[in-house]
C-alpha cells in the first residue's frame, strides 16, 4: 500500500463506519498487498479444510468404504436419531461437558498463576530450569501418565493414600478410582499435572510483550508486587486469555478419550465415558463411519454456536474478540 493513500488511517472508528459500495471498492484497491498476503492462503484453507466436508454426507448414509458415492445407501437422520435416543448419549454428554469445564477452569487458572509467579522469579537460571522441567510431562503419552496416576492412587501402598494416612486425614486407604465422585477431579488433576507447564508457555510469551514502562509507572504510584501482578501483568495478558478462553469454549465437547479410557473401569463407567469413547465404541470400532460423522457434525454445531455466542458476549463487554 502506498503511503499517502488517504483512507488508511487505522482507528477503531474505521471499522464501525458504514461505508458505501464505492468506498469499499476504493478501500479494496488500496489493500492489494494485504490481499496478496492473505487470499492465496485462504484458497489453501478452502482446499484442505472445506473441500473435504463433502464427507459429511456420510452421516446421512450407511457408508461403506467400498462403494462409490452414487452407490451409497441414504438413511436420512437415522444416525442422529440413534445418537440422541440412546440413554447413554445424554450421560456421556454430561460427562464430557463436566470434565471439559473442570479441565478448562483448572487448566486456565493453574497455567496463568504459574506463568505470573514464574515471571516473578528473577534468578535467570532458576527460572529457565523450572520452566523447562515443568513442561516435560507434556511429552509423555497418556498411557505412561495414567499408569503413574493409577499407581499413585492404589490402595496398595499408593503414594496418595500413604501420604494422607501419615498426615492423619484418613484412617484407611481410599479406592480413588472406584468412586464415581472423584473421577472428574482425578482427570482434571491429571491434565493439570501433564499440561500446566506447556500451557503456561503462551502466557509467558504474552507477558514479555508488556511494556516495561507500565511497571515503572505503577511503582512510582506506590504499587506493591501483588498490585503490579494484579494491575499490570494480568491486564497485560488479558486479551490472550480471553481469546484462548473463547477458542477453548468451542472444544467443550472434546474432553478426549485416552485418559478416561485408561483410568476408567466398569465401576465408574457412568461418570467416565465421554462422547469420544462412545463414538469409538459404537462407531469406529465396528466400522460405523456414519455414526462417527454424525457425532462430529453435532459437535461442530455446538462448537460454532458456542464461540459465536461467547464472541458476542465479549463484544458486548468491550473485551477482545476472537472474530
Amino acid at each position, binding site marked *: *500500500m*502506498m*503511503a499517502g493513500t488517504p483512507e*488508511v488511517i*487505522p*482507528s477503531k472508528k474505521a*471499522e464501525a463506519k458504514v461505508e458505501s459500495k464505492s468506498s469499499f471498492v476504493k*478501500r479494496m484497491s488500496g489493500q492489494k498487498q494485504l*490481499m496478496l*498476503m*492473505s*487470499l492465496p492462503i*485462504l484458497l*489453501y484453507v478452502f482446499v484442505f*479444510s*472445506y473441500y*473435504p466436508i*463433502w*464427507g*459429511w454426507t*456420510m452421516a446421512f448414509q450407511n457408508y461403506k*468404504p467400498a462403494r462409490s458415492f452414487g452407490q451409497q445407501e441414504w438413511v436420512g437422520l437415522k444416525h442422529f436419531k440413534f445418537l440422541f435416543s440412546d440413554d447413554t448419549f445424554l450421560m456421556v454428554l454430561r460427562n464430557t461437558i463436566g470434565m471439559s469445564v473442570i479441565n478448562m477452569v483448572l487448566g486456565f487458572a493453574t497455567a496463568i498463576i504459574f506463568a505470573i*509467579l*514464574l515471571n*516473578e*522469579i528473577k534468578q*535467570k537460571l*532458576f*527460572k*529457565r*530450569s*523450572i*520452566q523447562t522441567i*515443568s513442561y*516435560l510431562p507434556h*511429552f509423555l*503419552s497418556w498411557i*505412561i*501418565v495414567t*499408569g*503413574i496416576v493409577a499407581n499413585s492412587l492404589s490402595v496398595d501402598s499408593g503414594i496418595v493414600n500413604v501420604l494422607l494416612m501419615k498426615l492423619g486425614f484418613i484412617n484407611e486407604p481410599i479406592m480413588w478410582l472406584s468412586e464415581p465422585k472423584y473421577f472428574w477431579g482425578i482427570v482434571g488433576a491429571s491434565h493439570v*499435572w501433564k499440561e500446566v*507447564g506447556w500451557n503456561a*508457555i503462551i502466557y509467558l*510469551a504474552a*507477558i*514479555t*510483550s508488556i511494556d516495561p514502562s507500565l511497571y515503572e509507572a505503577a511503582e512510582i504510584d506506590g504499587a*506493591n*508486587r501483588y498490585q503490579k501482578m494484579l494491575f499490570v501483568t494480568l491486564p497485560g495478558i488479558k*486479551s*490472550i486469555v480471553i481469546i484462548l478462553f473463547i*477458542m477453548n469454549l*468451542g472444544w467443550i465437547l472434546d474432553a478426549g478419550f485416552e485418559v478416561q479410557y485408561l483410568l476408567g473401569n466398569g465401576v465408574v463407567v457412568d461418570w467416565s465415558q465421554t462422547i469420544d469413547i462412545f463414538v469409538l465404541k459404537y462407531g469406529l470400532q465396528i466400522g460405523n*463411519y456414519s455414526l462417527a460423522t454424525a457425532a462430529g457434525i453435532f459437535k*461442530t454445531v455446538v*462448537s*460454532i454456536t458456542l464461540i459465536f455466542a461467547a464472541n458476542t458476549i465479549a463484544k458486548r463487554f468491550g473485551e477482545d474478540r*476472537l*472474530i
Partner: protein
Amino acid sequence: MRTRTLKMEPVVFHTLNSLFMIVIAIVTLYPFLNTLAISLNAGNDTIRGGIYLLPRVWTDQNYRAVFAGGTIYHAFWISVARTVLATVLSLFLTSMLAYAISRKEYVFRKPITIVVVMTMYFNAGLIPSYFLIRDLHLLNNFLVYIIPGLISAFNMIVIRTYIQTLPEGLIESAKIDGAGDFRTFISIILPLCQPVLATVALFVAVGQWNAWFDTFLYASSKQDLSTLQYELMKLLSSSMLSNSNAAVSSGADPGAARNMVTPMSIRAAITIVASLPILVVYPFLQRYFVHGMQLGSVKE
C-alpha cells in the same frame, strides 16, 4: 505499617514463591525421571512394579532394542527435515495471514477470520481427507508432511492477538515512512513478534516432531519416508505383539528367558529417545519467551 509490609514482603514472597516453584519442579520432573528409570531397568523386573527414581536391575537392553532395526537413523533425518521445513514455512505463512487480519482497515478481515477460525471446529473425517491427499498426488510423497498442516487457525489467532497488543504507532510510523504492508510485516512485525513466534514455532515443531498418523495413513508403504515417531510406534506395537506371541504360541521355544524387553520398558525407552532432541533444541527457543526481549530495544 504499610512501609513495613513493603520491606518484609519481597523476602517472604521470594522464599515462598521459590519453594512453590521447587515443588512444581519436583512434581513435574517425577514422571519423566520415572520413565527414565524404567527405560534403564530390565523389562521383566519392571513388571513387578515399584520402580520409582532409580532402576533396580540396570540394563541397556531397552535402548538396544530401539536401535536394533537400524531403520531409525534414516527416519530421524526425515523427521528433522519435516520439522524444520514445516516449521519455517508454517511460521511465515501463518504470521503473514495473522498480520493481514490484524489490520483493522482490511476489508476482508472479518470474513477471513471467520473462515479460518471455523476450521478449528470441524473435521471432515479420515476418508475424505485421504481422497484429497490422493488426488493431489501427495501419497507416498515427502510433501504430505509439509503441505496439509501449514496453516493452523489456533496459531494464527495467537499471533494476531499478540500483534494487536503492539503499539499501533509503530505500524503507522512505518507507513508514513512509505513502507507497504509486506515490508511493514517483514521489517517491523516479525522482529517485534519474536516471543510469540518462538512460542508458535515450538507448537508447530513439537506437533511435527511427534506426528506419526500422517505417515501411517499416507506414506506407510514407503520406508524411505518413514519418520522417527512412526518407527518408534512400529517398535512399540511389535513389542506388544511379540510379548503376547511368546506367551501364546505353543511352538515358541520353551524355557529360555523371555520378555527381557516388555512393552512397558520399550515404551519408556521410546519416550526418552523421542523427547531428547526436543529437549536439546528447547533452550534456543526458550530464551525468547522466558526472558523476553526488551521491547524497547526494538522499538526505536
